[in-house]
Structures are given as structure tokens and as C-alpha cells.
């Protein structure tokens, strides 16, 4: 940091988190099995899970979507961190977190809500999800929704595969998708 003693820096960040004045509190979890994860929460709930280890673009986006008061405050993410740790250790099969999807367009939100019903260790297809939201021809659009999922892992877009069972694509890269599905025992 820029010449500010750690203790002073941490004290300010904790006070900022407690002040209620933040639009988004975030942290970067450096050592998860799928690489660094940026996680952000607003006053309404989890608003971002990002695979990009260079958070510059992420911070700009969060500022645009939720307001400019975006600050790294590790303490505010304790609960998110521990649920993710449990998930990666195979001990958690569902997340118990409030989600903030207010920056997500209506159709995307409907698809993501449907996606959220796909259980741990199971997979579905783009076409099936399209059907479930009442837009049977929209498999491609559902693919776009998955690609732009603001909360990967927690909203399990890794559980959506092609009609022939191929993994097709993943916003965070196919390696991660495969790792997550293996963790859940959906593939061997």
C-alpha cells in the first residue's frame, strides 16, 4: 500500500464496512481451487462472483452497476468466504446467501432463478432451461445468460451442458467447469 500502516488501513476498512455507506464491499479470495475469486456484496446480498484475478474491470463494472463506493473490506465477506470454502471442500451442496440481481435484466433474472433450482451433482441443458422459462426457442439466449451470470458457482451455470452432454462453454473457462462438475460428482 501507499505508506499507510496495515493496522490503520485495516481499521479504516472495517469502519467503512460498519458505516453502512458502502455500495459494494468486496474481497479477492486468492487461494480457491478454481483460482482467485472476486466476491462482492451490497446491502441486499451477494452481487458478484468473478474469476478475473485482475479486478480493475470488475471494480469499474461494480461502480457502474451499484454505485462508486466500492471498497475491499475482507471482514464483510466472512460469511461468503466460509460458504465457498465449505462448497470447495465438498461439505456444502447449497448456498444460503441473499442474492442481489438488481443489475441483471428481467429475462436473465428469470433464467437464473430457474437455473438456481438445478441441484448439486445434476446437470441440465440450455434447451431445457429455455423451455422452463417458457421460451422454447431461446436456447441460444439462455447460453448468453449463462455466459453473463454475475454469480457463477453460487448460481450454478456450470451445471448447464449441451444437448449431447458436451460441456460446450463456460464464462470462467472449460477447465473450471469441468473441475466444478467433477467436485459435485456430476462427471467422473
Amino acid at each position, binding site marked *: *500500500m*501507499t*505508506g*499507510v500502516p496495515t493496522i*490503520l*488501513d485495516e*481499521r*479504516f476498512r472495517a*469502519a*467503512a464496512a460498519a*458505516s453502512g*455507506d*458502502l*455500495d459494494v464491499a*468486496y474481497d479477492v479470495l486468492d487461494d480457491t481451487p478454481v483460482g482467485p475469486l472476486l466476491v462482492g456484496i451490497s446491502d441486499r446480498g451477494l452481487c458478484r462472483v468473478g474469476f478475473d484475478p485482475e479486478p480493475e474491470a470488475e*471494480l*469499474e463494472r*461494480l*461502480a*457502474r452497476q451499484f*454505485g*462508486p*463506493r*466500492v*471498497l*475491499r473490506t475482507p471482514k464483510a465477506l466472512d460469511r461468503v468466504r466460509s460458504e465457498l470454502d465449505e462448497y470447495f471442500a465438498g461439505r456444502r451442496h447449497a448456498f444460503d446467501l441473499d442474492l442481489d440481481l438488481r443489475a441483471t435484466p428481467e429475462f436473465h433474472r428469470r433464467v437464473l432463478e430457474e437455473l438456481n433450482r438445478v441441484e448439486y451433482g445434476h446437470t441440465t441443458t440450455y434447451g431445457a432451461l429455455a423451455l422452463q422459462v417458457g421460451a422454447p426457442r431461446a436456447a441460444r439466449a439462455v447460453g448468453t445468460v449463462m455466459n453473463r451470470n454475475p454469480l457463477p458457482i453460487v448460481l450454478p451455470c456450470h451445471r448447464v451442458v449441451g444437448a449431447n452432454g458436451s460441456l460446450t462453454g463456460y464464462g470462467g473457462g472449460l477447465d473450471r467447469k469441468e473441475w466444478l462438475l467433477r467436485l459435485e460428482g456430476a462427471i467422473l
Partner: protein
Amino acid sequence: MARTGIPPFERFYESHSGEVLAFLRRRAGRDRADDLFQETFLRALRAYGRLEHGEQLRAWVLTIATNAMVDAARRERPTIGLSVEPAGEAERPPIEELAPLTDDLPPKERAAVVLRYGYDLDYDAIGAALGSNEQAARQAASAGVRRLRKEKEQR
């Protein structure tokens, strides 16, 4: 909604926290600087969502730091008398002495006087900090000094 050029607060904090702390330590001493540092950035955070643009953020946060110092000095010495001459161009009293002096000035004039004579900012930066311009800042500072002189004569 689309306010341009305002960086995420994290970036703003990273860019200016070191300088603000050094400034506070120089002006208020090491002991007080830590508390003032936190106070300054909490105030900045509170106001950050209402910023219209991202220009002159350095001058802006130094103004907030100055105000935090002034407020702290006032809390510590609420009944101090008029112990120093109002500032002329040549003499620049330290911030602690300016604090009780400028208490009764209208906010804009007070900020202009404190930034000019307590912190040595040029009028361009002060104008930016006050959301106006160089000329308005110059006028506010000189109006503030005139008012201080007048108040002194009346006592």
C-alpha cells in the same frame, strides 16, 4: 446515474491515502493523525456517492482532511480567544491557529481561507475543491480575510 470519471472508491483511497496520512501527520502530529485519517476517509466515503465528477479528487480529499482537523481543533479548544493576527499574504499561520479563527466564517469563505493560508493551495485547486473556479476562490478567500479583520476590529 452515469456520472463520468468517478473511480471506484477503492482506487481513490489507494491513490490518496498515503498523501493524506502524511499531510495529517505534518499538520496535526503523529498522535492525532491516525484518528483524523479514519475520520477523513469516512467523511469522503459518505460524500462520495454525491460527487458529480471525478476531477480534482486530491484537492477535494485534502479539503476534507483540513476540515476534519479544524473540527478536531475546535473540539479541543472551544473557547480560545483571538490570539493571532488574521492572515495576510506574507504570514501563514498553521492550521491549528486558523481553526478557531475561522469558525464563524461562512463555509465557502472558511474553506478558502483555510486552504489558502493553512495549506498553501493555489486558487486554481481551491476553486476546484469548492466546485467553482479560480476567481471565485480568490474572492471567497479575500472576503473571508476582510470579514476576519472586521470582526477583530469590533472586539
